[in-house]
């Protein structure tokens, strides 16, 4: 009996107040409950849907928690070697200038192993969108220190807290790429509240529209949580993010083109 009941029997069309975009597949997300990746995925796909660009978009998945992003996004995608997504995106965009090309990367991928690819794609002003999800930790490998781990923050490879003297300072790569003439639009967003989600989506949409206008590189950082890596409940993690991450990684536009 039970196995014959489908979603449609439970959720009646007339009662629907929200429907996920068709560009997200029905595959169950591999992310931990409470993680921001799912929301970030949804926003990117909603933007592609609103631009009617499913057939014109190519995404690049990183190595890290979102390595399987191509399982959830119903568009053509390539999975890059660790940190190299901007190099793939550079070539695809140059070979298909009329397509929307974006990378979706975490902080270890983008700001440690892929620093050179990130900075040079930004510096060349590649006409692509970089979505950078920063949760201050290597999530997939089990919570090691990332380039963006806060001073004093504990991780499995900074078990007594990040000691700046020996482990270095967290890298504000978003501020760094904003200095480069090749970046057109640089902003830092979050997806922990409905208001933040709306703002983040606006930023992502603007970034994709910039591609259409040939404006150069748009760089969207999304400060996010990692409740499992941070060893907190989802609510605690979001609160910790507000109290600790946001003061260091201040939300808002960092580089906005003059209209």
């Amino acid at each position, binding site marked *: 009996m039970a196995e014959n009941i489908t979603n449609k029997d439970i959720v009646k069309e007339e009662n629907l107040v929200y429907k996920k975009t068709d560009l997200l597949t029905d595959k169950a997300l591999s992310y931990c409950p409470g993680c921001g990746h799912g929301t970030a995925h949804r926003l990117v796909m909603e933007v592609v849907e609103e631009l009617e660009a499913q*057939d014109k*978009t*190519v995404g690049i998945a990183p190595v890290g928690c979102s390595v399987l992003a*191509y399982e959830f996004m119903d568009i053509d995608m*390539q999975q*890059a070697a660790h940190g*190299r997504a901007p190099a793939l995106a550079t070539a*695809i965009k140059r*070979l298909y200038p009329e397509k929307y090309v974006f990378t979706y990367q975490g902080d270890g991928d983008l700001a440690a192993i892929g620093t050179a690819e990130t900075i*040079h794609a930004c510096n060349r002003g590649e006409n692509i969108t970089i979505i950078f999800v920063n949760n201050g930790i290597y999530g997939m490998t089990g919570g090691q220190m990332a380039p963006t781990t806060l001073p004093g923050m504990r991780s499995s490879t900074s078990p007594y807290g990040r000691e700046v003297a020996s482990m270095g300072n967290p890298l504000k790569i978003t501020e760094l790429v904003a200095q480069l003439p090749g970046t057109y639009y640089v902003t830092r967003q979050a997806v922990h509240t409905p208001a933040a989600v709306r703002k983040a989506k606006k930023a992502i949409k603007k970034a994709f529209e910039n591609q259409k206008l040939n404006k150069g590189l748009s760089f969207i950082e999304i400060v996010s949580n990692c409740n499992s890596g941070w060893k907190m409940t989802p609510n605690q993690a979001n609160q910790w993010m507000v109290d600790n991450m946001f003061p260091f990684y201040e939300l808002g536009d960092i580089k906005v083109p003059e209209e």
Partner: protein
Amino acid sequence: MKELRLMKGNEAIAEAAIRAGVDGYFGYPITPQSEVLEYLMLEKPEERTGMVVLQAESEVAAINMVYGGAGAGKMVMTSSSSPGISLKQEGITYIAGAELPCLILNVVRGGPGLGTIQPAQSDYFQSVKGGGHGDYKLIVLAPASVQEMYDFVELSFDLAFKYRNPALILSDGAIGQMMEKVEIGEQKKRLTDAEVKERCPWATTGKDANRERNIITSLDLDPNKQELFNHKLQDKYKEIEEKEVRFEEIQTEDAEYLFVAYGTSSRICQKSVQLARAKGLKVGLLRPITLFPFPSKRLAELSKQVKGILSVEMSAGQMIEDIKLAVNCNVPVEHFGRMGGIIPSPGEVVEALEQKF
């Protein structure tokens, strides 16, 4: 009317790329192959054919640009020399794992480490045994002239697309730098995006409503599926070994001794054959043109005819291992080589033959 030009090997590669209708070249300067990138920049291929040429920030970035372009179905290539090719191994294994066609040129210099800028053949193992991690093979072509540098660009792409496998041209500093007469082919048109879609229905060209999304990845976390995939790769390599072996024989009909040499060494050995025959030694030369697949069957046949085989390589002896496997102890196999950027003289090779047999 044939179009003939006097060109460097590296320039021939670049001109061949434009003429073959290559869509993208991504490179990084390193001696002795920088002329490839220089020639392309000078020629403005974006005006001639629309070809994209980009100087990347590193060899690592360049090969990953190739990965992106190849995944999108385009004809893309990169070139480098030994230390740079080592850096590219990460990208190459991803490309092999994602089963993508592309061309990589290695204008080999002496190693290990930063080594020297003079020609060597010490990257044989790296080229034919994989190079990066995992069980994979490249299709490896070894040109012995500037003409072959030119011709092998199109041949490499044909094979790469036929088998969805990266191809590597294993050249060296001598062939890259020397100038010879080259017969230039016709300008081919680059494929249109519609033609790319037809040739590469698997490529990330944008998901149309009438097909499932295309995913380019080398990841499968399910070990059972990963093993099946590895079997599929191995089957492909077997097919390549059956169908794509290429080699050249010089005076092997009556040979009692055999040189086996590729690339620059094979040119030296051609002269050595003449010198040896002038001394009354019946020597022939087998020149593998494909290093993977290796001409093992032909070597096994020849091993029944000759009394000894001398593998001549500008290395400590790498190809000799494949020769030994091919002849299965039927006949003594010896190595002669120079290293570190030294090219042996034809006389040295004959002396080595006389000493060893």
